[in-house]
């Protein structure tokens, strides 16, 4: 299938530099997710890989071949868009077949490939319909089917689930994971949703302001965030950041994930008042106004009977404390 290598990719729109030197290697069959806040350059990076944007400098290699100036169709890629981008005047079948027809693929071959994709995505009943007659989830499946029939080296997904409702999003997420296992294809996926990133990725690339903050497996990012940005971005509810001096710790900032704090009504390290409690069934989130550490979020597993205005004590698990220096980088012990 396909590997991808990016060497010092830079991209400017006028005077504004959007990508500031991106280096990345993606191995054959890997599922890599670009994640970051809006405007961090993740979509621009994906479009540069696709060839829809020309990079200002740097090199894009797909399967070891320099494709920096190759047109999108010659890069061996397929892309799935957030807005589905189906051809509205063509039937589902023709939507999937257009690219192959354009490439001059023999009709038999087109039929075989479309049939295989249709089978894999259970699209048989819809082949003759127009996109307007399909629901959002079905449209996105057609868009994925259109990518499949190209049998690309590299699948590119640009926020494919963002336009779907919550239930469908989970369902399609599972479907994409299954496809990845089934095809063993290399996939690059852009999202701003960290849950998608954590659940799907082999490796996550966290982008911020046009630079890569950290690359790692979901659990590496969770357990060993390289800096304050990654620590705050991965994990929900967000990690608590406390000025180290306030609580007598070393380093500049202390980070504790809400799930690594325990709560007791009687004794503990940070005494505080519950200002809001969220009961989610499986989890209970408490927002505490503490005397020493300021505002602290605590995530408890299961149901708990805390309510607003209760006085409680929160204690961090000492093994799970993250320390950061003045520049925001993690201090590794």
């Amino acid at each position, binding site marked *: 299938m396909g590997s991808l290598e990016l060497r010092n990719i830079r991209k400017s729109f006028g005077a504004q530099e959007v990508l500031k030197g991106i280096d990345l290697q993606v191995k054959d069959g890997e599922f890599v997710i670009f994640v970051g806040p809006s405007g961090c350059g993740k979509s621009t990076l994906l479009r540069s890989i696709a060839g*829809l944007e020309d990079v200002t400098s740097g090199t894009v290699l797909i399967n070891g071949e320099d494709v920096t100036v190759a*047109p999108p*169709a010659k890069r061996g890629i397929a*892309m799935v*868009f957030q807005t589905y*981008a189906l051809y509205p*005047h063509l039937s589902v079948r023709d939507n999937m077949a257009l*690219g192959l027809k354009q*490439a001059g693929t023999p009709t038999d071959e087109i039929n075989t490939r479309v049939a295989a994709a249709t089978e894999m995505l259970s699209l048989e009943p819809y082949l003759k319909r127009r996109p307007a007659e399909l629901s959002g989830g079905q449209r996105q499946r057609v868009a994925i089917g259109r990518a499949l029939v*190209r049998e690309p080296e590299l699948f590119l997904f640009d926020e494919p689930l963002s336009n779907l409702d919550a239930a469908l999003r989970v369902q399609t997420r599972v479907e994409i994971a299954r496809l990845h296992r089934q095809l063993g294809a290399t996939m690059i996926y852009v999202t701003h949703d960290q849950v998608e990133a954590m659940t799907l990725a082999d490796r996550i690339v966290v982008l911020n302001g046009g630079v890569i903050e950290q690359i790692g497996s979901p659990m590496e990012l969770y357990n060993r965030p390289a800096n304050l940005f990654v620590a705050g971005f991965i994990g929900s509810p967000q990690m608590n950041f406390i000025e180290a001096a306030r609580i007598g710790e070393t380093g500049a900032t202390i980070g504790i994930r809400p799930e690594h704090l325990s709560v007791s009504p009687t004794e503990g390290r940070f005494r505080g008042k519950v200002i809001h409690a969220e009961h989610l069934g499986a989890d209970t989130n408490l927002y505490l106004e503490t005397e020493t550490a300021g505002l602290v979020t605590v995530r408890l597993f299961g149901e708990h009977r805390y309510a607003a205005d209760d006085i409680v004590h929160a204690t961090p698990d000492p093994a799970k404390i993250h320390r950061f220096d003045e520049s925001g980088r993690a201090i590794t012990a």
Partner: protein
Amino acid sequence: MSKARQSTLRTSLVHVALIAYTLVALFPVFLTIINSFKSKQAIFGQPLRLPGPSTFSLIGYETVLKQGDFVTYFQNSTIVTVVSIFLVLLFGAMAAFALAEYRFRGNTLMGLYLAIGIMIPIRLGTVALLQGMVATGLVNTLTALILVYTAQGLPLAVFILSEFMRTVSDDLKNAGRIDGLSEYAIFFRLVLPLVRPAMATVAVFTMIPIWNDLWFPLILAPSESTKTVTLGAQLFIGQFVTNWNAVLAALSLAIFPVLILYVIFSRQLIRGITSGAVK
């Protein structure tokens, strides 16, 4: 529309206004057609009467079909109109696509330059146009008319179509690029089918002034073999005597080709006009 927003009074007021406007718009056409079937005395005696047994006469139509070569005139008008519409739509859409799709230096200026033609009437340049046609030997050819009408129709076409083309999603065009479509294929196979309603709108707005024009046929192509219908009908308007039967008959006949073209475009046209308002 929901029941709550509908009131019988409001709906009927709207309909009264629309019907009144329709009557005002159709009255001259109606008058032309009924009078074309009447004898000369009846046209002046009772211009508003329908043709009766005593006043019915086909003399106008007989004159038109005998005198002058109206089949040729119709043919000329049709060729000029259809070819001009085709060229306006083709070049207008291409220019609009370039303006809407590509970022290049001077894009906005180019758009403004192309749109200026909407405000400056092409007739101001008649003398220069005539000199140009004389120099190139195009006087008394249909080509001269087609060239002028294409130039006349382009500004509005570019203006309307570029607005519509901006609404075609970028993702769609990018999907086409990934599927290996060339920029021409994207234009012809993805974008044009999607802006078809706008194309029909432009076609109608372009067609009517061309079909009805008297000015340029009179100046650039007044020869017998290149006359258009509108110019041909002038044959019956004299300085002292005007053959009203023939004029009215010629005008009635001239309505039909344009009506047929309009019906072809109109289904698309309605979608074009309302597509911005109704999502």
